[in-house]
């Protein structure tokens, strides 16, 4: 099946700093989503981005499908950005299955 690798596994920032999270995947995809898992365990949908670039406030994402990677940018980070960020992809032969990466644990200090 499709493989998903996220980097870095852990990231520690000071409030106000910028960061880039990366997601590499091993095959063509029909769906790519970025999630933020908050301290209560809820998966918050950040972006649906199988290709192209999107922005939402301080967050933006870019997926280069031909090179099989996606990037999540967080600018001017805040303590509330802390949590785990997951990338999840649906391979071209899948019928709905999202394969998740291991996640990036982000900690933002005041």
């Amino acid at each position, binding site marked *: 099946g499709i493989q998903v690798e996220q980097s870095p596994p852990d990231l520690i920032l000071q409030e106000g700093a910028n960061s880039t999270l990366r997601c590499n995947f091993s095959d063509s995809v*029909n769906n790519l989503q970025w999630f933020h898992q908050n301290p209560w365990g809820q998966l918050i949908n950040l972006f649906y981005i199988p290709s192209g670039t999107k922005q939402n406030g301080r967050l933006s994402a870019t997926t280069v499908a031909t090179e099989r990677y996606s990037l999540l940018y967080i600018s001017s980070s805040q303590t509330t950005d802390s949590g785990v960020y997951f990338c999840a992809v649906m391979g071209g032969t899948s*019928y*709905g299955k999202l394969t998740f990466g291991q996640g990036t644990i982000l900690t933002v200090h005041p």
Partner: protein
Amino acid sequence: EPEVTQTPSHQVTQMGQEVILRCVPISNHLYFYWYRQILGQKVEFLVSFYNNEISEKSEIFDDQFSVERPDGSNFTLKIRSTKLEDSAMYFCATTGLAVGDTQYFGPGTRLTVL
């Protein structure tokens, strides 16, 4: 904005007991999924369901698991005889008209098997 809802939020059960986890999908969504996340690990796919049939399932989804839409609105996951290793957060997700569209996740049910 429409949301996927799940009940209960937390369930504690004894090993060997049956549990049913419930999900109310977003209205008019056609594709339904269950995922689970063991504490500290990544989210894993269990099963996808469309047109009242399972369309894909993982190796985790063995004979102990079943899914159904008993009344056309709720979408349920049943675990027949729970094991300690079934302790996890279970997420329901739904998609609208096309299988490749955004999957919207519910808040999860935390299952604890003692």
